[in-house]
């Protein structure tokens, strides 16, 4: 994948080193096994210790055993994981942005000391329970509830489409205190609590190498010390999602690049119609011109977004724009590359259709393409059109 606008010029020595190290790891360890895991529908658990030892989990957080790298370095790590498979980046996004970030941002000092080092070193795996069977794009309608009872809260509800649900030792459950109109709070729920059950979602055609579950909570009792004390209302989970979407916008560039490289190599070597490679045909060149432009636009957007983030100026609406644009670009790229590979493109011998299937999910989760469209529509017109 050509770095067409040479955005790597803007990376520091450390940022390049992070990119190269994670890429070397993924090439040596993940790529040889990920196709088999995708086919079998299993998450590559054997990679967790090395991913953790590399310091990827919560890498952009400071202290508590986290690496404390820049947002660009974190983005590049996500990009390299997703160059292998969206399942690996999803695993790291959930652990880092949806579990470690809220504890880091909203947790008590005791919670940070207890959980963050072990989440960083992979001894504890986390998951994030916001979405419910009937509340996806509209999470504030959630039915999950928490009832105060002495020194405890008692939780009830169902969460669905939960990445890492069956791997997790710790679930962050967002639930309302005091009924349907109550206030949303975040609860740190050990998954071995009585009344907690994770049910694996099978028959997926996408993110097959990722663990996706439904969480059922029936009278799960947790001490009050496990409530995130420093955030109330939907801004808690929404801040987590903004953090994760930033990583997704970087990550999908990796998946798109993997598809681009595979298709370009194929097109240069696949000979049809009188001895010329298909790359010599105008229709094929038009495809490459389009996806090259769109991927380059994605790269420039995340670079600028990272600079805004460093200055504390990045707005959630801007994150909506880069998630929406880059996930769609990656999906379109994967579909186009699948097309270029012809019949060969439908197999696991090439990474392209695996990425294409994965990116259907990535375009949908963490705010669907259409929901981010409405976020931008509201931002520019001042009129909300969600209802």
């Amino acid at each position, binding site marked *: 994948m050509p770095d067409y606008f040479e955005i790597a010029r803007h990376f520091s020595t450390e940022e390049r080193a992070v990119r190269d190290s994670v890429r070397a790891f993924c090439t040596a360890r993940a790529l040889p096994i990920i196709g088999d895991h995708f086919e079998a529908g299993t998450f590559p658990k054997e990679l967790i210790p090395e991913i953790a030892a*590399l*310091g990827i989990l919560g890498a952009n957080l400071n202290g508590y055993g986290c690496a404390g790298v820049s947002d660009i370095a974190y983005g590049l790590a996500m990009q390299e994981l997703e160059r292998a498979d969206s399942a690996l980046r999803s695993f790291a996004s959930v652990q880092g942005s949806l579990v470690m970030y809220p504890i880091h941002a909203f947790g008590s000092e005791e919670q940070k000391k207890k959980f963050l080092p072990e989440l960083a070193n992979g001894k504890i795996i986390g998951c994030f329970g916001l979405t419910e069977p009937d509340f996806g794009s509209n999470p504030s309608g959630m039915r999950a509830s928490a009832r105060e009872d002495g020194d405890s809260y008692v939780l009830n509800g169902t969460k669905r489409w939960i990445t890492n649900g069956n791997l997790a030792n710790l679930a962050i459950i967002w639930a309302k205190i005091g009924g349907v109109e109550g206030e949303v709070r975040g609860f740190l729920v050990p998954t071995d609590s009585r009344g907690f059950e994770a049910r694996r979602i099978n028959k997926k055609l996408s993110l097959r190498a990722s663990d996706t579950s439904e969480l059922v909570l029936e009278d799960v009792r947790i001490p009050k010390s496990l409530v995130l004390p420093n955030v109330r209302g939907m801004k808690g989970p929404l801040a987590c999602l903004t953090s994760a979407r930033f990583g997704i916008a970087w990550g999908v560039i990796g998946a798109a690049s993997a598809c681009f490289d595979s298709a370009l190599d194929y097109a240069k070597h696949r000979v049809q119609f009188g001895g010329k490679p298909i790359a010599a045909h105008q229709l094929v060149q038009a495809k490459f011109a389009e996806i090259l432009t769109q991927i380059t636009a994605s790269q420039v957007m995340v670079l600028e977004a990272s600079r805004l983030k460093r200055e504390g100026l990045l707005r959630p609406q801007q994150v909506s724009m880069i998630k929406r644009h880059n996930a769609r670009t990656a999906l379109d790229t994967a579909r186009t590359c699948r097309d270029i590979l012809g019949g060969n493109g439908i197999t696991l011998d090439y990474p392209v259709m695996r990425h294409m299937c994965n990116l259907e999910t990535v375009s949908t989760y963490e705010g669907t393409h259409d929901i981010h469209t409405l976020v931008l529509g509201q931002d520019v017109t001042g009129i909300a059109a969600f209802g």
Partner: protein
Amino acid sequence: MKILVPIKRVADPDNANKLKISSDAKVDTTGLEWKPNPFDEYAVETALRLTENGANTKARVGEVVVVMFGPKEAESTLRAALATGADRAIRIDANDADLDGDVVAQGLKAIVDKEKPDLVLLGKQTVDSDSNQVAQLVAEYLGWPQATFAATIRSEGDKALHVGREVDGGTLHLKVTLPAVVSVDLRIVAPKSVRSAHTAEGHAYPDGVRFAALMAIMAAKKKPLVEEKLSDLVPGATRKIEYTSFALPPARAAGIKVKSVQELVQKLKAEAKVL
């Protein structure tokens, strides 16, 4: 044990399409992405394995000093080696155009005289020029024993090294007394290829070189990196090798179709002369 590991950056082969060569055989490296020479990465990995016990890679038993000839921007390659575990770095300020294997070997001799390592450990060659000269030359200039193309190394109490070299039809074993010069081949990074004086019996590494952890990359910023001048180390250094031209391999000629088995056999006999 104190180990000096000379390393070099090479143009990333994935970016080879950007390489420009002028008519007077000058290579224009503008805009290239660089990578560490793979054999040098193996040498760094070997040096780290020789200065630890394998079980705890954070407990260092010795020192690994990486050294490089190159311009300021090549320091990122030294920082990458520091991030994987090397202790400190030396950059000898030089332009690639002023260097050949002999100048590098003379410069390394001067560094060895200052640093007094027990071992100089190198990749067997760089993948850009494929010269395969520096280890042999520096051993000659130092008057030290050498073992080239090491596939296995076992330290005998950090006083001597038992080196296995893959040769046609088998493995050649030799023992070099330290101080010595050793160059490594690609199989040196197999799980059990290197045993330090401290490695536990039966310890197996993951296959290949280790990956730099993100926190180690951040910490490497603070590890010592000093600069030396080539002119101070080797006054009046001039290269003995000049590149006069570069040419692509000739394009392969098109094949021919034969009409019958008889014709095929006849051509194999008369033209290809393989029957």
